[in-house]
């Protein structure tokens, strides 16, 4: 595909340039709306669809069933526990999943027997899981503690590496947008929130910062001697760096998302709900949003945070002055680079 290589060449030289930094207001508004929606959707839907790990209860999995009729499974449960409302679902092919409220050991065994005969399977094809209501909360609490510690440490790491806290702040802002929107999409999908989904979110967190660091490293390189240059303003240098790494961003996103997408669409189609599907949905959305957030949120925000620094204001004036001079002398309409 010569055009893609050419695309990369033009992005590199700046011949083709997308105005990521200059149009920041648009991106910020889109992000704000997306974040607001992501908060409103779960609220409107009455919260997330919490998995059994958070509600607590018992879950039976019956494999190789003869019939995928949900009523059979419901009856097997209500025969033992009257008045209970089991959730019966055909999760994949010939596998049924039956979730109930918390059961006693005796009830569990009897329901297991009931399900075995109801679905015409052997004893070892029915498995049961019991989850205390605090387990999911416990996992989440520890995960949140981990998240906070990680974000703080990562902020320090980036501030030290890039030698400016403004990069840390921008990277974390981009990450926050990613997290909110991913959670919003997850709520919208009505997938159950399980510990696997939490794992997915944590990975997105790390991926999002990782992606930002790669792009920021190019920005650092491009803006290292911006003071001495009158060619581009600081914001333009940032924009050029984002454009120059655009091909890498697209390629990385594609390579990261292909296996995840394979799990989400192929694996989950075969397996139904479960660890892999929950995890891959969170990742799929997170990688897409995370890549976009780096380009549209983190980088423009960094340029915006620094644009009022006295040195850079002076530098921008010099650039402007030089351009004004050269264009007035040339007397022709010049195609100006991206305005920031």
């Amino acid at each position: 595909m010569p055009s893609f290589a050419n695309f990369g060449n033009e992005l590199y030289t700046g011949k083709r340039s997308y105005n990521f930094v200059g149009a920041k207001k648009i991106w910020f508004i889109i992000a704000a709306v997306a974040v607001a929606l992501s908060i409103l959707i779960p609220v409107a839907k009455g919260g997330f669809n919490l998995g059994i790990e958070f509600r607590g209860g018992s879950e039976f999995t019956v494999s190789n069933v003869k019939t995928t009729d949900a009523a059979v499974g419901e009856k097997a449960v209500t025969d033992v526990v009257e008045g209970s409302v089991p959730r019966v679902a055909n999760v994949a092919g010939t596998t049924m999943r039956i979730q109930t409220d918390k059961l006693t050991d005796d009830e569990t065994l009897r329901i297991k027997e009931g399900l075995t005969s109801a679905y015409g399977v052997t004893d070892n094809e029915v498995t049961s899981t019991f989850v205390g209501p605090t387990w999911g909360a416990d996992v989440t609490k520890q995960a949140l503690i981990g998240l906070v510690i990680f974000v703080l440490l990562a902020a320090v790491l980036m501030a030290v590496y890039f030698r400016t806290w403004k990069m840390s702040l921008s990277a974390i802002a981009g990450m926050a947008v990613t997290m909110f929107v991913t959670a919003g999409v997850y709520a919208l999908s009505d997938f159950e929130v399980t510990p696997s989904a939490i794992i997915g979110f944590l990975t997105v967190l790390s991926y999002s910062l990782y992606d930002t660091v790669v792009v920021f490293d190019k920005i650092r390189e491009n803006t290292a001697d911006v003071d001495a240059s009158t060619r581009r303003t600081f914001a333009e240098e940032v924009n050029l760096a984002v454009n120059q790494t655009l091909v890498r961003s697209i390629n990385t996103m594609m390579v990261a998302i292909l296996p995840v997408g394979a799990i989400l669409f192929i694996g989950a189609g075969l397996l139904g709900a479960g660890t892999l599907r929950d995890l891959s949905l969170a990742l799929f959305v997170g990688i897409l949003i995370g890549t976009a957030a780096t380009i549209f949120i983190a980088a423009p925000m960094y340029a915006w945070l620094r644009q009022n620094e006295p040195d850079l204001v002076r530098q921008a004036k010099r650039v402007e002055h030089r351009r004004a001079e050269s264009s007035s002398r040339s007397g022709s309409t010049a195609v100006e680079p991206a305005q920031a």
Partner: protein
Amino acid sequence: MARTGSKKPGLRVLVWLGVILAVLTAVLAGGTMAGQASWAPKLALDLEGGTQMILAPKVEGGSDINEEQLNQAVAIIRQRVDGSGVAEAEISTQSGRNVVVSLPGTPSSQTRDLIQASADMNFRPVLLNGAGAPVPEESRAPEDQLPKPAAEPTNGSDTNWITPEIYRQFEALDCDNPAQDEQERSDPAKPLVTCEPASGTNPAVKYILGPVEVKGSNIVTSSFQLQQGAQGAVTNEWAVNIQFDDEGTAKFKEVTERLNQFYVAAGGDTGNDPKAQFAIVLDDQVISAPRSLAVITDGRPQITGGFTEQSAKALSDQLRFGALPISFEIQSEQQISATLGGEQLRMGLLAGVIGLLLVVVYSLFQYRALGFVTIASLVVAGILTYLAIAILGWTENYRLSLAGVAGIIVAIGQTADSFIVYFERIRDELREGRGLVSAVENGWKRAKRTVLASKAVNLLAALVLYFVAVGNVRGFAFTLGLTAIADLIVVFMFTHPTLQLLARTKFFGEGHRLSGLDPKRLGAVPLYRGAGRIRTPEDKPAAVVPAKNAGAAAEAERRLTIAERRMAQKQEQLAGSSKSAAKETK
């Protein structure tokens, strides 16, 4: 890096990588041959099938549990599970808060109750003792000689507790092969027939014990020390001290008053009346049965005799643990059939393979022949990860869970990113007009920093999650960290050296159309462009070239610095020489 003078830079590093891989393979092969390791990575319960229980310890009164108590709890659970005859149970603590019990198969409800129950410690008087082995059938007491209670027992040491059934039970009890199906906890008001398991050089002993006289909850604390002699001098004998609360002190005084009489009546130290002993019983097993040498009135008995420092500490720990009844709440219990786990693993791997194939297609499409370097690098990273997991499964008992498999599949993307970053930098250098050999070196210098900085973020995430998180989040964090390290090794020791070598081949070095590094396709501007003009790599072509009419350009040029003038010249040339450039700038 073999950059100085060597004709084949990178070769040495590649050899080193080969050595590392060979050593790891040899280690694993050695372990497999010794029968300890296996070529297949160990699978966690969710893939292998079995039951995993996550237990949260609960202390009566709701106070927090400390690490020492948790370790005690694990020891107790291990004893209970092993006692119930479940083979290969794994018991571990997690994040200093929970106890994870993994068992193959489905535990019986007795096993489950047993695991959950709080530690049950108490003190019972000994009525009768004997060697741990069962009495042979022929020498068992005949029916008419069985002890028959003549009256209601009047105190804990009254032999009227021993009924014919209890005696038969005592005769039949085999302490070396305890019954697999543990019964429910004994009734504290009734006598108990039980064993003291063999420990060290002491053989197993079985007992008939009277009813519970002092409860473990009456213990305030316990410690161990070197015994003090009569003159207060420290001897070489280890001793365990117990301290009872007020209730315990009163009861224990009563018990020792009675037991000490048996001791004195039997002739003091030379006597051998089992009724002078009291048994410390934990979970219905005797952990120690000392004789009562004196009446203890202050609630501070000292147990001595044949302790090593270790055994004294063990007993003291057990006593303290018994003093603090910890029960366990099942937080989650998961039973996975081996078929379901296997199916999940197969589907997960299938999806992973499909994803990987897509990555292969995409890299070849994007990077042509260079895509093969990506694929080869991924393969090497895969081998490294596999070896690490298999070896860790052997040495650290690391088990691969479904979350871990997902972590590895996810890592494909992040691993490939290192190569993408690197390749893009090389292409950037080519666009600057460098030759491939120097483009590889310069691109590497820049890419190295980026790769290190970004992998640091990944490693940080993996480390924090591993140490803070619980449950399968940990397994995931572990694989994430593992793959990040494998990735760094591969980028530094495989991808870069390979490119160094490839850069010197004709196919890549001359920028074959299919090499993915074709300077023409990359729109490279040669460093030397004739007419004595050498472009320095530092001044890149400007972003957008304003079109100029010649006169104005000359005027502007006069006002530029030398560097800027050179720039402008170059831009002009660019605009003139490249059709597409002219089109773009209008």
